[in-house]
């Protein structure tokens, strides 16, 4: 990989966050993390064209994953978004409505999610 793909991972569970961080780092991605939607939004507004893909949990304090997805799809329509949820169907359905590219239900296999990430990023690169 000449230039590593950049990921933003958002989850209010720090264990999950560090697991994802370690994993994607070891797979050659450049990873940034945020503990809730608000922290993520601030990172995104700060570096708007930096990230290739956003992976976000849905149920979080202040700005929820659904809120984050709605804002991001409006402000940065090219950013690919994967939503993860462990709270039944409701938040997942709202995430699809907010136009998340993929909605995954927890528990999630890390290799599977990495596959999805690379597919989404390659898709976007082909379009460009």
């Amino acid at each position, binding site marked *: 990989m000449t230039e590593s793909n950049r990921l933003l991972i958002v989850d209010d569970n720090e264990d999950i966050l560090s697991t994802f961080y370690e994993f994607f780092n070891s797979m050659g991605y450049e990873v940034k993390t945020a503990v809730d939607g*608000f922290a993520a*939004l601030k990172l995104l*507004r700060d570096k708007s064209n930096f990230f290739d893909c956003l992976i976000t949990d849905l149920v979080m*304090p*202040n*700005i*929820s994953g659904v*809120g984050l997805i*709605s804002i991001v799809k409006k402000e940065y329509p090219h950013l690919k978004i994967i939503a993860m949820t462990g709270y039944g169907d*409701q938040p997942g359905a709202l995430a699809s409505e907010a136009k998340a590219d993929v909605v995954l239900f927890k528990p999630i296999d890390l290799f599977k999610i990495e596959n999805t990430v690379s597919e989404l990023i390659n898709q976007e690169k082909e379009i460009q």
Partner: protein
Amino acid sequence: MSTPLIGVSKSILKIKELINHVANTCLNVLITGETGVGKEVVAQNLYAESARNTQNFVKINCAALPETLLESELYGYEKGAFTGAHKKRPGKFQTADKGVLFLDEIGDMPMALQSKMLHVLQSGEFSPLGSDHEFKTDVWVIAATNHNLEKSIAQKTFREDLFYRLNIIKIEIPPLRERKEDIPSLIEYYFRLYSSEYPNNNGSKPGSDILEKLCNYPWPGNVRQLQNCIKKQMILNSWEKILEELPKDQIQIPVAPQFETSYQSQQHGINNAFPTDRTSIISQFVDLSTSSDKLFEDISLKKIKKLASDRVEKEVIAFVLEKVGWNRSRAAKILKISYKTLLYKMDEFEVSPPR
């Protein structure tokens, strides 16, 4: 002119920053916090910072009105929709179009109306009572509650799907006792405000040792209770007296929002603004923070009798069981009830031996 959000604490600064970042997204907002923390102030600040601030800010209290009236207030009605509907009347969804609809006390909305609300939020369409037409509506919904809605969902008094739809952005306002550093600036602000409202007042600002005492008081009624004290001080001009009259022994820090005693909402003016033994006892069984209409609907002697006797029975059963080393047949004999009744009651009150 809306009230600014006063405070220097981390949590208030973070709320201000959050308002700033989300005011133009028009995503549904849920504001939570105990009675008197300033949920409406936050809603007005969201509105004031948004591009909708030239349109209407329409408020409705979902706990203050009976179900049918709340429905017609929200959606409006056509002439002849029901007895007494002499002419067509627009609902809040219509008056708030392109602006903000603030749904206060959403946790008290009856289930049937929650379903209808969900439909409107999903489709952006509503129809007035007695009308066949669906009207498009573009309102920014900001809801507020002092209930723990997750708990209400578990108790099946609040719809989970409506909760997730409202909870897109959540603003949680901590109680005043968790942000004491905001108290001096709140006093400063409201002292000035009321001084200008009542130019002939006798009030004075608190000195440093009084201020310290005020900062250390837990303020169970939050900012609204503090406001009442400042107003009262304008008349009495004695902070010592105000401090003296603050309820001390019985301060019940609300464990859960359901047990809030909401000192101010009794709306009897300043003299009755503080709880007595009576209200603190009653508030253990009935939510006194709602409007009188709702309160009178909730108060039923039969219901309260059951709640009160259940609570005492539970304690007595646990007490006797502990005394006899959890020997249930002995406990049943002492309590003069059958063994079966004891088991039933232990189950009902969730009394179980320590592990």
